[in-house]
C-alpha cells in the first residue's frame, strides 16, 4: 500500500488566540516496503503528521491518498484504513485497559469482527512477534507487568490487527539501552521478515540513522530535509542548526575529513567506523 500526502496543512484550534500552525505544506509519499524515519525536535509536528496517515486527524487543507483514494473524503472507510495502517502512540503502555494481556491484544481484532479462533491465533502470533511467550503472559493482568513488557503488549495489540504499515511514535522513549536495542531489533525483523512498511518517529538521530532507508527532517511544521541518511547527513551544518546533530560516528568521520583524512562520511555505526578507520590507516601505511 502507498500513502501520498499532498500539501498537507494542519492548524490546532483555528480562530482562537491559541491557534498553532502545526503542519505547513507537507508533501510526502510512503511506498510499500519503505523504512522511513521522521525526525525533528519536540514540537516540530512529527506526531501531528503521523496521525494524518491513518485518518485520526483531518488536514486543514491538502489531500491524503491511500492507494490513490482520498481519505479525507466523507465516504472513506476509516476503520479499514486504521486496520491497514497500524499506529503505535508514544508511551503506548498507557493505553492498556483490559483485565488480561490476551483481552487487551484481542481488542483490535475483536473490533474487526473476526471469529474467536482467528482472534486467538492472531493474539498468539502478535505476542510472539514482540518477544513475549503467550503461555506465560496471556492470562496475566497487563498492570502487573514491567514497563518494557507493557510496551510490548501494546505493540502486540497493534500487530494483532496485521497492518501493512506500522507507524511507531518514539517507541524507545524511556527504555533502558538494552530494552531499546531489543525493541529496534524487533522492528527491523518485522520490516525484513514480515515485510511491514515501517515509519519511525524519533528525535534521536542515533537511533534511526543506521536502520531507516529514508529520513524526513521536520522543523516548525515543514519539511527541512528529505533523503537517504547519507544524503541528509551531508549537510551537517544545517542539522546542527535544527538542533538535531549527527550520529556520533558520522560526526567523527566528518571531523576526520575536516582534518584532512581520506574517509567516507556516510557512516553511522561503530562497526562501519572501525572498518573505515582501519582502511584509512592501512592506506597510509602502504
Amino acid at each position, binding site marked *: 500500500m502507498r500513502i501520498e500526502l499532498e500539501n498537507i496543512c494542519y492548524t490546532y484550534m483555528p480562530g482562537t*488566540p491559541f491557534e498553532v500552525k502545526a503542519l505547513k505544506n507537507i508533501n510526502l509519499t510512503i511506498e510499500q516496503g519503505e523504512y522511513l524515519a521522521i525526525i525533528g525536535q519536540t514540537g516540530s509536528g512529527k506526531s501531528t503528521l503521523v496521525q494524518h496517515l491513518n485518518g*485520526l486527524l483531518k488536514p486543514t487543507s491538502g489531500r491524503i491518498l491511500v492507494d490513490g483514494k482520498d481519505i479525507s473524503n466523507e465516504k472513506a472507510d476509516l476503520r479499514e484504513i*486504521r486496520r491497514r495502517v*497500524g499506529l503505535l*502512540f508514544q508511551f503506548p503502555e*498507557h493505553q492498556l*485497559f483490559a483485565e488480561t494481556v490476551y483481552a487487551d491484544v484481542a481488542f483490535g481484532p475483536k*473490533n474487526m469482527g473476526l471469529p474467536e479462533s482467528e482472534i486467538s491465533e492472531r493474539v498468539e502470533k502478535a505476542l510472539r512477534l514482540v518477544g513475549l511467550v503467550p503461555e506465560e503472559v496471556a492470562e496475566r493482568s497487563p*498492570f502487573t507487568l514491567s514497563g518494557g513488557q507493557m510496551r510490548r503488549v501494546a505493540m502486540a495489540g497493534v500487530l494483532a*490487527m496485521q497492518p501493512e504499515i506500522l507507524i511507531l511514535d518514539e517507541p524507545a522513549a524511556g527504555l533502558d539501552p538494552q530494552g531499546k536495542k531489543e525493541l529496534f531489533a524487533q522492528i527491523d525483523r518485522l520490516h525484513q521478515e514480515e515485510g511491514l512498511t515501517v515509519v519511525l518517529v524519533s528525535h534521536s538521530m542515533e537511533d534511526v540513522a543506521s536502520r531507516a532507508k529514508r529520513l524526513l527532517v521536520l522543523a516548525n511544521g515543514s519539511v527541512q530535509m528529505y533523503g537517504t541518511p547519507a544524503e541528509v547527513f551531508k549537510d551537517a551544518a544545517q542539522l546542527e542548526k535544527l538542533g538535531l546533530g549527527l550520529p556520533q560516528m558520522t560526526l567523527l568521520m566528518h571531523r576526520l575529513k575536516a582534518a584532512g583524512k581520506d574517509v567516507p562520511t556516510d557512516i553511522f555505526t561503530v562497526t562501519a567506523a572501525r572498518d573505515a578507520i582501519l582502511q584509512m590507516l592501512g592506506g597510509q601505511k602502504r
Partner: protein
Amino acid sequence: MLKSITIGQFIPGDSLLHRLDARAKFIALLLVIIAVFVVRSFWGYLLLAVFISALLYTAKLPLHYFLRGLRPVYYIMLFTLIIHLFFTKGGAVLLSLGAVTIEANGVYLGIFMVLRIIFLIVSTSLLTLTTSPIALTDALEDLMKPLGKIGVPAHEIAMMMTIALRFIPTLMEEAEKIMKAQMARGADFETGNVFRRAKSLVPLLVPLFVSSFRRADDLAVAMEARCYRGGQGRTRMRQLKITMLDIFAVGISAALIPLMLLLT
C-alpha cells in the same frame, strides 16, 4: 470532539477587566448577581443592560466567546419564555386561541426572565474569561481566610481547586490521546445505543483512571520533596494588591443594588 470544550476559559489580555484584582472582580460579580435578582422594572433592566454591555466593551474580547457560554442554556431560556407566555396572566390580552391566551404580563415577564439568565451567564463569563484560574483560586483563598477561624481549611480547599484546575487540560489531552490510540485499534466511540457507547468507554476510562492515580502519586511525592506543609506561613509569588480601581469597581457594583430597588 473534545477540542470544543473550553474549561477555565481564561483568554489572556490586557484590558481594564484583566487588570482588576481577582478578589475585587469576585465581589463585584456577587454584587451584580444580587442586582440581577432584585431588579424589577423596565428602567432597572435597561440600566443593567447598559452596565453589562459597557463591561463587555471594556473586556475587549470577541463576542462569540460570550455567545458560546450561552449555548448550553438556550433550551432553558426558550422553556422559560414559553412557560411565561402561556401561563402568566394579567394585562391586556394580546392573542387568544380558544382557551389559550397570551397576555401582556406574560410577554413582559418572559422577556425579563430570559434577560436575567443572559445577564447572569454573561457577567459570570466576564469573570472567568478575564481572570486566570490561578488568580481566581488565590482570590477565593484570600476571601475564605476569615472562615479559617471556624475551622474551614481555606488554604487546602484553594490548593485542591488549583490542582484540579491545573490538571483539567492535562486530563483532556490524555483522554484525547488514549481515545485516538484506541480508535487506531478500531474502537468506535460514536455509534451504537446508550449501552454500547457506555461499554465502549471502558477502554478510555480505565487507562485514564490509572494515569490519574499515577499522576496524583507523583504530584504528592513532588510536593513533599519540596517540603510542602500547607498554608501556615506560606508566602506567594504573586501578591494580591488592591488599587483605587478595584475599590471603584466594587463601589459601582454595590451601587447597582439600591438603584435596582429604587427604580420601580
